[in-house]
């Protein structure tokens, strides 16, 4: 029983320094996974942080309180009844009665209530995800913008809206509930409030209900909150089974929200209620500004009038300030450089061509020596040369990976702040420098590689093209600083990998991943933002791309020519004309200014990510970028190559020796 308690948190809109501290404490003191917790603590709405017995969850409570995160610990009540669908409503002076098929539910003035307004079409969820993806793609992860309350209400009304109204007793326990579905009730009960739109009528019911219930709360997070077991399924063509499941989940969601309200601290309750009432009022007014003028409504809901005044004041203020204030500083990421065909592919093609060319040359040579190629191959096999060659290649491969493994193990990890020039090993989180989005899944990422394959008769899938994000650099951040990484020429191991077949342009509509008739397929590998990366590469000072002194001088002279007042300062004789001598003086002054500017630029201390870049080292030294859990995890991968290569090499050598002995005897 105790195991079923849930710790639900109000998510933070963005990461804060307090959150970093909280995450490390949750990990160190309670063994919670940092990445899961981070995912659950950032967002819009509420999320399930942890599940377990009440005492365990209560031990987490002080940490969350310290970080200023609102949270609830509750054991969800099993719904004992579902809300009854209303057929009509009767507003009276003291109470509002909803008439359902088998019963009547009345809300008296001052009753406590809870309203759940949800969209069962999935549009709201889609729009919310779209909003997050686009803001992440173009503004970066630190500037995520979520749907506003107004947009949420608008989207719900555009989809398949359902309104559940719960009647609560003084303890916050549900005593009765009704469900309002658009066009399923007689709107005459709304009187003057009734409109021709069934969806707007739903909103009017909510307004009316709110005018009766004094302490009401409106929740619109069904499908948006990260609460496992209370999810919204996207109904394909209004499938009745999915709709039924969604209605059941909506009921469970309503009961859970009532539980949260029940377990809420009284100090935060009033603020929340005011905030939500203000939000709904703002939403209603945004949708229908004429409501602000309604005396009757203003009397019933004083907050409406207050919000209306605030909206008007803000709008006027914004209009007057619009021209005066400077344009907001754009924090959007720059567009990425164009993608390039991978060098790896070019190299492979080069080697294949080189091998083919060598074979042709060898064939020519053998022809000249009156020896045929098949006989050479046959002799090579009989003498054991071919197996010996295979063994040598495998040995070379095995030693290559062994050397790489030892290099990774022998290189200590540097802190980014103090990274020295030369071969370095660093670890940190990947951060985008460009608004890079992967070509198929449209995921904001720091790097991607798209490999296309085509089916080639009996040979199976053959690589037809490889496109990667190429020269789009990204940043790596640890607790001490950031550094720029140029992934060109790196051996990259990305863990996020998607596969699809021709015609499948997006993962949202993926069907089956085993398409036997497809002629083409693609594999997309990406490194998403925030991923922990291991980088072994060469740190160097970035090549400066400063303006040359000559250009600076030309620009200064151009500026001088355009500025008549500045030019007049050099008119020594005051005749209104610039003589050659005066122009010479102006040129000298411009030159001085350019030199001064150039020196000033050099003296300016720049941030590390602007100074140092980690890229491919020269020679045969490796450049590895790996999405890995630990260094050991990476070296274990090498071991998985080393053992079979050495075993294969030993077998091939044995085979070669036995063939050689046979040939000799």
């Amino acid at each position, binding site marked *: 029983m105790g195991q079923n308690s849930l710790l639900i948190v109000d998510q933070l809109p963005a990461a804060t320094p307090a959150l970093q501290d909280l995450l490390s404490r949750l990990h160190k003191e309670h063994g919670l996974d940092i990445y899961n917790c981070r995912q659950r603590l950032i967002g819009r709405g509420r999320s399930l942080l942890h599940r377990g017995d009440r005492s365990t969850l209560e031990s987490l409570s002080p940490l969350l309180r310290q970080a200023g995160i609102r949270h609830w610990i509750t054991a969800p009540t099993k719904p004992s009844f579902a809300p009854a669908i209303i057929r009509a409503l009767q507003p009276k002076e003291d109470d509002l009665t909803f008439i359902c098929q088998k019963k009547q539910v009345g809300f008296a003035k001052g009753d406590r209530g809870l309203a759940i307004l949800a969209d069962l079409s999935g549009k709201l969820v889609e729009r919310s995800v779209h909003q997050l993806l686009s803001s992440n793609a173009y503004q970066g992860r630190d500037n995520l913008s979520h749907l506003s309350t107004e947009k949420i209400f608008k989207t719900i009304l555009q989809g398949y809206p359902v309104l559940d109204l719960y009647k609560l007793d003084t303890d916050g326990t549900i005593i009765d509930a009704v469900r309002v579905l658009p066009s399923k009730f007689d709107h005459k009960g709304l009187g003057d409030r009734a409109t021709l739109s069934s969806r707007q009528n739903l909103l009017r019911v909510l307004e009316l209900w709110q005018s009766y219930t004094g302490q009401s709360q409106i929740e619109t997070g069904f499908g948006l909150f990260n609460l496992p077991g209370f999810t919204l399924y996207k109904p394909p063509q209004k499938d009745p089974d999915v709709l039924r499941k969604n209605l059941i989940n909506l009921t469970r969601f309503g009961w859970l929200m009532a539980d949260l309200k029940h377990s809420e601290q009284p100090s935060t309750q009033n603020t929340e209620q005011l905030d939500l009432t203000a939000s709904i009022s703002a939403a209603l007014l945004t949708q229908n500004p004429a409501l602000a003028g309604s005396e009757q409504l203003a009397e019933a809901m004083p907050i409406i009038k207050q919000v209306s005044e605030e909206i008007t004041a803000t709008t006027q203020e914004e209009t007057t300030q619009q021209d005066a204030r400077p344009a907001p500083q754009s924090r959007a990421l720059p567009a990425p450089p164009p993608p390039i065909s991978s060098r790896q592919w070019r190299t492979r093609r080069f080697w294949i061509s080189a091998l083919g060319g060598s074979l042709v040359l060898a064939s020519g040579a053998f022809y000249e020596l009156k020896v045929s190629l098949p006989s050479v191959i046959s002799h090579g096999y009989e003498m054991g040369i071919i197996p010996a060659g295979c063994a040598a290649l495998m*040995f070379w491969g095995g030693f290559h990976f062994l050397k790489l493994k*030892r290099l990774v193990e*022998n290189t200590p990890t540097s*802190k980014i702040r*103090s990274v020295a020039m030369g071969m370095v090993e660093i670890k940190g989180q990947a951060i985008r420098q460009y608004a890079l989005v992967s070509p198929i899944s449209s995921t904001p990422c720091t790097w991607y590689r798209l490999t296309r394959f085509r089916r080639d008769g009996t040979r199976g899938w053959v690589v037809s093209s490889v496109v990667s994000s190429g020269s789009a650099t990204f940043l790596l951040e640890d607790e001490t600083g950031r550094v720029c990484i140029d992934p060109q020429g790196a051996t990259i191991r990305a863990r996020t990998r998607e596969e699809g077949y021709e015609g499948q342009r997006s993962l949202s509509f993926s069907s089956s991943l085993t398409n036997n008739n497809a002629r083409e397929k693609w594999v997309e590998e990406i490194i998403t933002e925030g991923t922990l990366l291991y980088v072994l590469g060469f740190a160097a000072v970035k090549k400066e791309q400063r303006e040359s002194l000559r250009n600076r001088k030309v620009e200064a002279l151009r500026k001088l020519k355009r500025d008549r007042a500045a030019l007049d300062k050099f008119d020594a004789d005051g005749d209104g004309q610039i003589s050659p001598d005066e122009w010479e003086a102006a040129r000298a002054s411009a030159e001085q200014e350019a030199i001064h500017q150039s020196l000033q630029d050099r003296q300016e201390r720049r941030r590390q990510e602007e100074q140092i870049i980690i890229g491919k080292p020269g020679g045969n030294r490796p450049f590895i970028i790996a999405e890995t859990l630990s260094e050991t995890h990476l070296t274990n991968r090498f071991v998985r190559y080393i053992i079979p290569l050495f075993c294969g090499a030993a077998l091939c050598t*044995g085979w070669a*020796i036995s063939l050689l002995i046979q040939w000799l005897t």
Partner: protein
Amino acid sequence: MTGWIVLGVLLLLLLGLTLYVILIYNGFVQLKNNISRDWSNIDVLLKQRYDELPKLIKVCEGYMQHEKQTLEAVIKARNMAGTARSDQDKMQAQNMLTDTLKSLFMVVERYPELKADAGFRQLGNRITELEDQIADRRELYNAAVTIFNTRIDQFPDVIIARLFNFTARNLWEIDAAHRQDVEVNFQQI
């Protein structure tokens, strides 16, 4: 026939073993050079700090007429760092310089005018930044030394290490005094 096969296998094993020995030996050489490089990288920062110190002392002198002792300690430690030759001496001298700088920054707290001086702030930030970087690189140096010292004690690397006389290197450790608990007397504050 069997003799040939045995001979061939033995030759193969010998070849594999030789290559493995070469790999281990080269690994030691790389680790040794890593340590030297990490030490030199610390030296680069120490030199920068050494060069910045006279400017800082000059700024401080103007304000701290009554703290000659502290300033002299910094100058003395700087001179020691400049004249130290062996690695061990250098480590000790640098530790001493770090300590005297800490004392200097603590004393500065009593001089609000000095703290507000733009030149002092800039130099102070620069030296603090260098101190942080020195600490990071010292950690890196110690990590490289630890990898080397572990390798030369591990089997089968220990055989190659003994054969080619690779010996353990010293870690850059802090003074024993720094390990003691800090006593704070609130009555004196």
